[in-house]
């Protein structure tokens, strides 16, 4: 079993680590609170989020819209070509607006909501069951899946698989909605084993084709925008999966996956990687899987064991994870006690940094780790840091518009640029970040900012560079402190947590 961390070993550094990984970090005061609570209470504060009320409202379109759907389908079917084209354009624009709103809604929950750990899990499941609006199209489906991940964020593994598999977004994303007994579509059957539960090498090609037959019947009713079981689509004959033969259906198949020990190994390794920042050793993975199974394949008690383990607080774990773009953005805002940029701007930043929420690159999700970092994304992070602290527009958002086909220098670009110029970001408020006492001395400014941004010190050369930068200013303004903060965010050290 995992070794529990001794209560006496709990301290500020470990509290910061917990808040960074099980949440999206926070200002020194938040870390201090967790440190004061002690290990057990601190973990509970994050994990037992059901005790904290969540007043956030859902977007008003976040419900089935059968009337809207019917009207659209009718126009497309029976309207004149002009009407049809217009309806399609209007729907595209409507969907774009809703997706922008949805992205902002979710980011806001992460940055300012009362349940950061729950949102951290939603982000994990989004990367795990990586589903993209590029194919799903319907924002209601995307919201619904996101809400499903929230509802079952730390629930039961089997329940989550069944519910996620039968949710409209997944039914569209991996073509299960269109699968027929005459010719079963293998897309979901394959990915559920390869990417969601077992991993390469733990099933055969034959298992894929047979499981695809078992899954037939899981379908989507586009009229009601709900899951529907269609007996006529279902292949009601024997299948042989994992060497067992029977007239299985989709639920049976999911149950058969669950019965395989590999399904616990696979998901616990991935969860460990997400929170600890590296894949577990074989030995550790065995311990993780055992802890998961001992808790009935329920995530909450398993994660409680994980966050209270010595292993999670190892020297090779702390400050050795590359921040994902979402982590980078949300934790920067939280550490600086700042506002998120407006949804359109946040979205532009995340897309440029390689993590376009609701549009992962493929069903495998984001590779993560050091693949977040390329020469391109690193410079983009450095430049976006400037936007965050100064409250200016990120250069890349504007550049993005220029790259749209046929847009360069055109009217649409000019309009977009103008609209973007009106956008104001919060910018950093120096008074919130430094006490008057700290602000008085250039040495304490650097130290206070270091603790806030890194929860540790930079190396001596870097500290000296920063002090020299401040020393060179005859009269130190807020703008200089803001630039110094941006410089600290423009370091390799700021990209890890």
């Amino acid at each position, binding site marked *: 079993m995992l070794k529990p961390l001794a209560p006496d070993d709990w301290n500020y550094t470990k509290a910061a680590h917990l808040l960074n990984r099980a949440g999206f970090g926070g200002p020194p005061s938040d870390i201090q609170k967790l440190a004061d609570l002690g290990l057990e209470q601190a973990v509970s504060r994050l994990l037992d989020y059901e005790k904290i009320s969540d007043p956030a409202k859902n977007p008003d379109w976040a419900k089935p819209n059968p009337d809207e759907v019917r009207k659209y389908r009718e126009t497309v079917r029976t309207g004149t070509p002009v009407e049809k084209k217009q309806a399609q354009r209007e729907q595209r624009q409507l969907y774009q607006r809703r997706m922008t709103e949805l992205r902002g809604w979710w980011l806001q929950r992460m940055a300012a909501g009362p349940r950061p750990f729950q949102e951290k899990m939603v982000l994990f499941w989004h990367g795990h069951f990586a589903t993209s609006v590029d194919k799903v199209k319907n924002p209601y489906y995307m919201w619904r899946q996101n809400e499903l991940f929230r509802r079952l964020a730390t629930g039961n593994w089997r329940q989550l698989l069944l519910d996620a598999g039968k949710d409209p977004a997944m039914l569209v994303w991996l*073509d299960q909605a*269109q699968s*027929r007994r005459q*010719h079963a*579509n293998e*897309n979901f059957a*394959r990915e559920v084993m*390869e*990417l969601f539960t077992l991993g*390469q090498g733990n099933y055969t*090609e034959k298992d*894929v084709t047979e499981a695809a037959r078992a899954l037939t019947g899981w379908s989507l009713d586009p009229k009601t925008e709900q899951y529907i079981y269609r007996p006529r689509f279902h292949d009601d004959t024997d299948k042989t999966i994992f060497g067992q033969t029977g007239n299985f259906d989709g639920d049976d198949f999911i149950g058969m996956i669950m019965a395989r020990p590999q399904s616990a190994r696979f998901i616990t390794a991935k969860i460990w990687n997400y929170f600890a*920042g*590296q*894949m577990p050793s074989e030995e550790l993975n065995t311990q993780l899987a055992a802890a998961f199974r001992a808790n009935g394949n329920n995530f909450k008690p398993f994660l409680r064991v994980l966050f209270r383990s010595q292993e999670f607080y190892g020297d*090779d774990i702390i*400050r*050795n994870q*590359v921040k994902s773009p979402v982590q980078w953005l949300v934790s920067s805002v939280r550490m600086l006690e700042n506002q998120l940029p407006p949804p359109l701007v946040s979205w532009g930043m995340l897309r*440029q940094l*390689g993590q376009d929420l609701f549009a992962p690159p*493929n*069903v*495998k999700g984001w*590779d993560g*780790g*050091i*693949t977040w*970092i*390329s*020469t*391109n*994304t*690193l*410079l*983009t992070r*450095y*430049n976006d840091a*400037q936007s965050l602290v*100064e409250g200016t527009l990120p*250069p*890349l958002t504007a*550049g993005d518009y220029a790259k749209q*086909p*046929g847009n360069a220098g055109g009217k649409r670009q000019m309009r977009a640029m103008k609209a973007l110029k009106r956008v104001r970001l919060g910018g950093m408020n120096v008074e919130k970040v430094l006490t008057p006492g700290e602000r008085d001395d250039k040495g304490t400014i650097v130290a206070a900012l270091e603790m806030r941004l890194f929860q540790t010190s930079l*190396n001596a*050369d*870097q500290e000296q*560079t*920063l002090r020299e*930068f401040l020393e060179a200013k005859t009269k130190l303004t807020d703008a200089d402190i803001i*630039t110094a903060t*941006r*410089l600290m965010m*423009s*370091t*390799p*050290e700021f*990209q*890890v947590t």
Partner: protein
Amino acid sequence: MKNEITLQTRREFLRRTVLGSALSWTVPAFLADTFSALQAQAADSAIQTTTGKDATILVVLQMAGGNDGINTVVPYANDFYHKARPKIGLKPDEVLKLNGEIGLHGAMKGFKELYDAGQLSVIQGVGYPNPNRSHFRSTEIWQTASDSNKVEKNGWIGRYFDNACAGADTTVGVTIGNQLPEAFFAAKPKGIVFNNPQNYRFMANGNATEESYKKLNELEMSSPLPDDNSGGSIAMLPAGMPMTGGRAVDFITRTALDAQHSSEEVRAIAAKVRNIAVYPPSQLGNSLKMVAKLIGGGLATRVYYVSQGGYDTHTNQVASQQRLLGDLAESVKSFTDDLKAQGNMGRVLVMTFSEFGRRVTENANGGTDHGAAAPMFIVGDKMKSGLLGKYPSLAPQDLYQGDIKYNVDFRSVYASVLENWLKTKSAPILGKQFTPLPVV
């Protein structure tokens, strides 16, 4: 007998030459048929010097998602083909005929023009033993040139850099995009990534800020990097391996240095060169447009990497493949037009690949599921053009689990590109000696 005498004579000859003084008795006989070939080999075994003006260049073009090769290079006269694809099969008048049996997808006019000009080779039935139908695993196999049952942590282009480009500038490899492809993963990572040169820089509000940025990013790493970067190797995390020692921040520090040092050069070149050809307004079009600029401006790059996505056509394949292949052919044609206008056509080779082809039989949704072998395209001025290899049989009894069988191992194409185009030994890079396909 005669052979032995020849070898003797050659050795005698070598011993009396400058070259021979270094190599004499240790040269394996099979390496050289003639003295000039031997000399070329010897020169290539040394580190490759990269200049932006005369070295050969490889452009790797990834068609991500698993392109349906059977509807790309179409066996339009084959009954099995039409029987397997009643809905999505292309009729003889919907293809651009290459001969009495095979034609290119009708959207690929640009490729047909290149073919007619002797600048396109179509390698048929490319794959590898024990094909894997997972996008991710199969992509990994193509990117790392590994056997299907082995996991290789570094990419084949990365190993080319490791083996043949030590000491070269980091711009020896350029990816247009956001993320470094697995093919570039290396013991000593090289290669830069960017998509918009204007923004490929640190934006500073004054000289003092700029100077401080440089100092903050030039400093000593937290622990010195071992030479082979065995710690934070880029290959480790995505391959799902534990990170053993070494810290993530060291990898980022190295990337920060590469970014700082390449930023100015890339921007200067991109601003200097103008494209003459008109490209389709697609991502691929924009990427190749940028590559043409960098080649025209003389960036010292040996390998460029661009990609086009969207080929995972499980449903309604006809319309999406039409659009994708049209974009591909038109973008590449524009690219070659640019290169010709620059006078660089002879220096550049474009090689396409996709992680797999698709099932012979169409599915019930007007699409195709994951398959195995597929064609590769090579575009250039100095290679063997035309139809190469043999079209795999579509007869049901010749299929394996519904897929065509490969005739050409993709690594024999890589071997040819490495040996005959990039002029380096392929065995150390590919792990063993593959017989180079006589294409380049």
